[in-house]
């Protein structure tokens, strides 16, 4: 399932970001282009940060950027970007190097994708490569679960 969501249309490497809002914005760019979310979804993610802090920075260098289905999600979607330079957002998991943005259509349809994602990220070597690679092909292979050297 994950390769259906994360593909050459939704994955980018070495993206330039300076602030937390840049991370949210860049992560949403492809999801907006694909019609997965309305523009108001961006504001909803910012609000979630303001309400609850940096809880979406869930592992070292990793941000799972998302809001709720009713915040303007039109279709299930996911994007993945890694960053040219790490961005500090005031989290213990700074600097952020990898941003996966999730648009969940309801409470269940994204679960398989998240399970697959979790499985990938638990592999330390894969996790590290996802954060640092400058090759889109490598990134796409990693996300498909293919071994890369």
């Amino acid at each position, binding site marked *: 399932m994950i390769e259906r969501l994360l593909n050459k249309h939704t994955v980018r490497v070495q993206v330039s970001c300076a602030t937390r809002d840049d991370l949210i914005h860049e992560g949403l760019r492809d999801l907006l282009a694909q019609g997965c979310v309305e523009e108001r979804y961006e504001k909803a993610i910012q609000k979630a940060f303001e309400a609850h802090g940096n809880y979406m920075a*869930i*592992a070292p260098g990793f941000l799972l950027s998302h809001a*709720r289905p009713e915040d303007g999600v039109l279709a299930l979607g996911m994007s993945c970007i890694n960053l040219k330079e790490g961005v500090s957002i005031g989290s*213990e998991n700074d600097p952020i190097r990898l941003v996966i943005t*999730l648009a*969940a259509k309801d409470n269940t349809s994204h679960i398989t994708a*998240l399970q697959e994602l979790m499985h990938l990220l638990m592999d330390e070597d894969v996790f590290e490569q996802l954060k640092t690679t400058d090759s889109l092909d490598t990134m796409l292979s990693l996300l498909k679960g293919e071994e890369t050297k």
Partner: protein
Amino acid sequence: MKIMVCCGSGLGSSFMIQMNVEKILKELSVSGVEVDHCDLGSAKGSGADVFVGTRDIAGELQQIGKPVISLTNMLDQDNLRTQLNEVLAKEGIL
């Protein structure tokens, strides 16, 4: 006994942590423990006995007055295992 994993929205990180909690409970051969996930707003009324959340929301969870497992790195299963062990021992499950 019920363990509730919480995050701000109740559908992203909370679910990912729930998968790890369930995996560890299985490893520990613990049965009869229900695991679910929800958003922060629903946490208080969930009636759960133990709450799990990322560090940034742990403070809000602590206000409920039940044991809270606070995670900085969601991918760090060893840390989660250690904290789960402690809580389950205290609750008399292990």
